[in-house]
C-alpha cells in the first residue's frame, strides 16, 4: 500500500498538480457554500476542464472539489440556516444554534477542522483498504463483475429513499442512454435513428451537465428571489478549533468510522452518514439533552462523518469500479474519460496513477484545513453573491465546458435535451442521481453479462456455479428484499442496528 503512495509521489509532487489541488479545494468550498450547487455540480462543471489536463492533475482538481464541496455547505448551514449542500443538513442542527448563541466563529472553525480530520481518517482507510479490495477483485471474472455491478445498480433503490420505483426508473433511463451508439460486441448501431452524431454514443458529460446543471438553473430561475442578498456576519476562523476537536477525539474517531463505513456502502452517501453519526453521538453523550441547543459535539459528529464518507466512497469506486454515489460515479466517469479504467487492473498496471490520486485526496484535506481557516471571511462573503449573477455564469460554464469536450455543437443539443428532461423529472420528484449511476455502471454490467454468457455457451448457470458470483448475487437478493420490506419493519430493524453502536 505504501508502495502505491510512493510510486505516485513523482506524479503528484509537482507545482502544477499541487496548485490544482489547492485551487480545486478552494473552488469546492466556494461551490459548497452556495445553496443549490454542491460538490456534484462542482465536479460536473469542472470535468470538461479536467479532460484537458494530465490524468493525475485532472483527478486532483476534481477530487479536491469533492472534498472542499463536502465541507463548504456547513458555512451557509451555520450562518444563514440554509445548508449549501444536502450533506450539511445535519450540521444545521447544532451549527445554527451555536451561531445564534454568538459562537459563529467556533462553529465554522470546528466544522472545517472536523471535516478535514474526518477526511484524513477516511483517506487512511482509502490507502489501506482499496489496494486490498483490488487484490481480491483480481480473482473476479465477468460473472462476478456482473453480480457486483448489479449490486451497485440496486443501490439506486437505496439512494432513492422513499421513491424506490421512480429511482429505479431513472436508473434504467441512465442504463438505456448508455446503450446508444455502436454495440461493442456485434458492431450494430443501437438507437441512433440515422443521426451520425449518435454513432459514438451519448457523452456522459453532456448528460450530467444537462441533467444537473441546466435543470438546477431552470429551477432557480423559476423559483424567483434571484436578487435577494442574505445578511451574513463577518466571521474569522480560529486555529483553536483543532484543539477543541482533538479534546473530543472519541466522537471524532467514531463519527469518522461511521462516515467511512457508509461511504463504502454503495448508495448510502454522506447525508445518511451525517445523520446516523449525529444520532449515535447523541445517544453516547452523557448530556444528550444538549444536542440541538448548539454544542460542539453535534457539529463534529456530522462534519467528520460526511467528509470521511468521501474517502470511504472512493474505496469501491477505484478498487471495484463500483461508485458509492453520484459524485463518485462522475469521478469514475472522469477517470474513464482520461483513459483509465478503475478496478484491479488500475492498481496493477497504473499504480503510480492510483498513488497520485490518493496523495491528491490527502492533500485536499490538508488544504481544506489551511484554506478553510485562513479564508473563512472570503467564503462567508460568497454567500452575498446574488443568484442573478451566479446563474448566468453557471450556464456559461455548462455550455462552454460541454462544447470544449470535442468542439461539438451536437453535444450542446444533447446537453439541452437532458436539461429539459432533468427539469421535468425534478418537478415530478424523480431522483437524478440514479441516471448517472446507471449511465456509468450500465455498460460495465452489459459487457460482464454478455461475456459471461459467451464463456458459458449462453447458459445462465455460470452465475450460480461460481461461489463468488453466487455469494454476491445472494447479497443482491438481500438488497432487493430490504427494498421490498415495509417501512415500519425497516424502522424497527434500524432501531436494533443503532442499539448495537451504544457503548
Amino acid at each position, binding site marked *: 500500500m505504501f508502495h502505491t503512495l510512493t510510486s505516485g509521489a513523482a506524479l503528484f509532487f509537482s507545482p502544477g498538480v499541487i496548485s490544482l489541488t489547492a485551487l480545486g479545494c478552494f473552488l469546492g468550498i466556494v461551490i459548497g457554500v452556495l445553496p443549490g450547487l454542491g460538490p456534484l455540480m462542482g465536479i460536473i462543471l469542472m470535468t470538461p*476542464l479536467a479532460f*484537458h*489536463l494530465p490524468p493525475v492533475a485532472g483527478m486532483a482538481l476534481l477530487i479536491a472539489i469533492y472534498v472542499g464541496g463536502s465541507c463548504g455547505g456547513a458555512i451557509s448551514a451555520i450562518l444563514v440556516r440554509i445548508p449549501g449542500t444536502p450533506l450539511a443538513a445535519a450540521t444545521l442542527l447544532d451549527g445554527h444554534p451555536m451561531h445564534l448563541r454568538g459562537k459563529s466563529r467556533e462553529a465554522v472553525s470546528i466544522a472545517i477542522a472536523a471535516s478535514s480530520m474526518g477526511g484524513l481518517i477516511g483517506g487512511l482507510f482509502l490507502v489501506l483498504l482499496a489496494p486490498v479490495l483490488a487484490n481480491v477483485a483480481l480473482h473476479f471474472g465477468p460473472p462476478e463483475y456482473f453480480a457486483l455491478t448489479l449490486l451497485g445498480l440496486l443501490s439506486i433503490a437505496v439512494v432513492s429513499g422513499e421513491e424506490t*420505483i*421512480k429511482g*429505479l*426508473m431513472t436508473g*434504467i*433511463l441512465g*442504463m*438505456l442512454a448508455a*446503450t446508444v451508439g455502436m*454495440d461493442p*460486441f*456485434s458492431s*450494430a*448501431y*443501437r*438507437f441512433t435513428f440515422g443521426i451520425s452524431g449518435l454513432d459514438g454514443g451519448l457523452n456522459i458529460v453532456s448528460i450530467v451537465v444537462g441533467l444537473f446543471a441546466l435543470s438546477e438553473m*431552470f429551477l432557480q*430561475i*423559476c*423559483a*424567483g428571489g*434571484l*436578487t435577494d442578498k442574505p445578511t451574513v456576519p463577518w466571521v474569522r476562523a480560529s486555529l483553536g478549533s483543532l484543539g477543541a476537536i482533538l479534546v473530543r477525539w472519541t466522537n471524532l474517531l467514531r463519527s469518522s468510522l461511521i462516515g467511512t463505513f457508509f461511504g463504502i456502502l454503495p448508495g448510502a452517501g454522506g447525508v445518511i452518514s451525517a445523520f446516523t453519526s449525529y444520532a449515535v453521538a447523541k445517544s453516547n453523550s452523557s448530556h444528550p439533552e444538549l444536542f440541538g441547543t448548539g454544542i460542539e459535539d453535534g457539529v463534529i459528529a456530522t462534519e467528520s462523518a460526511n467528509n470521511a464518507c468521501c474517502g470511504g466512497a472512493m474505496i469501491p469506486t477505484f478498487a471495484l469500479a463500483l461508485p458509492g454515489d453520484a459524485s463518485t460515479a462522475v469521478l469514475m466517469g472522469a477517470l474513464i474519460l482520461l483513459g483509465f479504467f478503475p478496478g484491479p487492473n488500475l492498481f496493477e498496471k497504473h499504480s503510480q496513477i492510483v498513488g497520485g490520486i490518493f496523495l491528491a485526496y490527502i492533500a485536499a484535506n490538508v488544504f481544506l484545513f489551511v484554506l478553510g481557516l485562513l479564508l473563512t471571511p472570503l467564503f462567508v462573503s460568497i454567500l452575498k453573491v*446574488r*443568484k*442573478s*449573477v451566479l*446563474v*448566468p*455564469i453557471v*450556464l*456559461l*460554464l455548462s*455550455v*462552454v465546458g460541454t*462544447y*470544449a469536450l470535442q*468542439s461539438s*455543437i451536437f453535444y*450542446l*443539443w444533447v446537453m*439541452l435535451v437532458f436539461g429539459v428532461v432533468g427539469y*421535468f*423529472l425534478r*418537478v*415530478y420528484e*424523480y431522483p437524478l442521481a440514479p441516471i448517472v449511476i446507471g449511465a456509468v455502471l450500465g455498460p460495465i454490467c*452489459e459487457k460482464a*453479462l*454478455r*461475456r459471461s*454468457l*459467451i464463456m458459458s455457451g*449462453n447458459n445462465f448457470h455460470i452465475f450460480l456455479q461460481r461461489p463468488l458470483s453466487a455469494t454476491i448475487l445472494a447479497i443482491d437478493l438481500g438488497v432487493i428484499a430490504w427494498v421490498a420490506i415495509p417501512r415500519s419493519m425497516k424502522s424497527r430493524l434500524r432501531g436494533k442496528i443503532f442499539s448495537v453502536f451504544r457503548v
Partner: protein
Amino acid sequence: MTASADSPRRTGERVVAGAFLGLSGLVFEQAFTSLAAQGAASGGAMQNASFYPEILAAVLAILALAQIFKTFLRPKRAALPGEPADKDREQNTPSKQSYVRGLICTAALLGYIFALVPIGYQISTPLFLFVMYRTLGERNLIKVAALSIATSLLVSFVFQNLLDVIFPVGRLAIGF
C-alpha cells in the same frame, strides 16, 4: 374519480410515467426494426445487441405501469403536522412572471447555442450574458455590460490560453 385523482399534478405524474412507458415501447420498436435489419436482434450473447436493452425496457415498462397505477390508488389524506396541504403546494408553484422569465432565459440559451459557431464566441457570449443578467433582475446597464464582457473574457482566457481549447471565431473571425 375523486378531485384529488384528477389534479393537474396527478395528470402530470401519469404523463411522465407514460413517457417512460413510451421509451420502453421505442426500445422494442427499434429492436424489431433497425436491429433486426442489422441481424443483431437474435442469436447468442455475441450477436444479439438487443438482448440487454430489451431486458431493461421490459423492467422499465413494469415499473412505469406500477407508477401509473400508484397515481390512481393513492388515497387523499389530511396533511401531517408541518406538511403543507395540497393548497399550499399550489401556492408554492412558480408565478406566471417566473415562467415568463424562464422562457426568456431558455430562448436566450437556445439562441446562444445557434449563434455560437456562425457569430463566434467573443460576440455571442457577452450578448448572451447581457440578456441573462438583465432578465434575472440586474438593473445597472453599465455594470451588467462590464460584467458580461469581463466574464466572457475570463472564461475565454482560462479555456483558450490555459487549456488550449479553440473557441469558434465566427464569420467575422474575431478571436483572441
